[in-house]
């Protein structure tokens, strides 16, 4: 049996934040075309896990590998991080914001991933904010800013999407559109790691449920960040 083109492997991830252990010895592997849905109570470490995969939180132990990725790039350079912050500059217009990210973020092309690259104009049109393209982003509503931030994922093809609460601030229609985009990304051979509280109707999902172990002096696994 041929192994899939891309394989994201996390081995014994252990992270400390603010001097306390968030979780330890977390291992999983994810193949292309699969979504990993991370669930668990508030403060259990879902966001920390995503930020760790994004390379923004240093690992205390363990490692993150990407099999089948570009050799000279780190795993996080194959990934888009779609977090709580929009990274939208209010002084720039919608298109200017997007054009910057298209030129700035390096695309990651891997063998099994056939995600298409949209132009900024197509991307804002797809997400239904085409009529605001020339407006300064300061005039966008929270949901529109969120959609602008999401369109960043469409203009630079990268196989891994790390999405923290992707449906927050989105209305029902946009939520459905987001799911379509996510499913499209999976079909194209990408992979998604998402932390969420709501049910997401994704094809081909794996669930990772983070749970606090009984308080133990040697391994405090539960904490608030």
């Amino acid at each position: 049996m041929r192994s899939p083109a891309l394989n994201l492997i996390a081995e014994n991830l252990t992270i400390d934040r603010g001097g306390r252990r968030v979780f330890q010895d977390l291992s999983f592997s994810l193949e292309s075309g699969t979504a990993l849905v991370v669930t668990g109570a508030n403060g259990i470490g879902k966001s920390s896990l995503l930020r760790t995969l994004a390379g923004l939180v240093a690992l205390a132990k363990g490692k993150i590998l990407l099999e089948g990725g570009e050799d000279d790039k780190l795993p996080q350079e194959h990934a888009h991080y779609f977090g709580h912050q929009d990274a939208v500059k209010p002084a720039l217009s919608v298109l200017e914001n997007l054009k910057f990210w298209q030129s700035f973020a390096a695309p990651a092309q891997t063998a099994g991933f056939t995600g298409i690259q949209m132009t900024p104009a197509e991307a804002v049109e797809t997400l239904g904010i085409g009529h605001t393209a020339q407006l300064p982003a300061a005039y966008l509503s929270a949901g529109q800013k969120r959609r602008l931030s999401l369109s960043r994922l469409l203009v630079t093809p990268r196989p891994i999407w790390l999405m923290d609460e992707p449906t927050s601030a989105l209305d029902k229609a946009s939520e459905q559109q987001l799911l379509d985009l996510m499913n499209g990304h999976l079909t194209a051979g990408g992979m998604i790691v998402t932390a969420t509280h709501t049910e997401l109707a994704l094809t081909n999902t794996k669930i990772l449920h983070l749970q606090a172990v009984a308080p133990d002096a040697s391994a405090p696994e539960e904490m608030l960040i």
Partner: protein
Amino acid sequence: MTGWAMALFQRDLRLSIRVGGSALVGVLFFLAVVTVIPFGVGPDLNLLARIGPAILWIGALLATLLGLDRLFQADRDDGTLDLMLMAGRPMELVVLIKCLAHWIATGLPLVIAAPLLAIFLNIDPIAMGAVTLTLLVGTPALTLIGAIGASLTVSLRRGGLLLAVLVIPLAIPVLIFGVSAADAAIHDPVPFLTPFLILCALSLIAAVIGPVASAAALRFTAD
């Protein structure tokens, strides 16, 4: 390779122009510092002419410090910095380009304003040219050294003051050679070129050390 660098440069320049104020506030602060000194030392024109280059340099240093805290903070506050760290671009170059855009938006206006402010201080034309020239090659060093402080204090809410405390000691060599080159142009026997070339060297050293140290600090504070 050049495409992303140009995009970043244009974006930063556009932001500092549109958000507004940064260049103008810096120049106004520079003006305030320079005009307030004669009130302090008294209307002695010869004294002013003698200490004029030093006043201009200190004014430029303080005005540079004023805008530095926003160099990375705005990008950190809205999550842009996280994405920049993941963008697959060398962070050292990113810092260098951001510093360049920042210097053009805030440092260059100070250089341009310097000849005008030199008139306030009774500085003669040759010295005026010398001060402006030293500021032109010296203020990039202030921005680049300041970038280290800006990235170290990026996660602090009120980091501006700490930034100044961190950066001023590191900026002393630049100040010494900037002022001595300008002075050398006034007092004939002292050669102008020696301190001026050392000042150029300081800017070049800062262009190497600043981005490397600053990028390391930004990676560390991403958490």
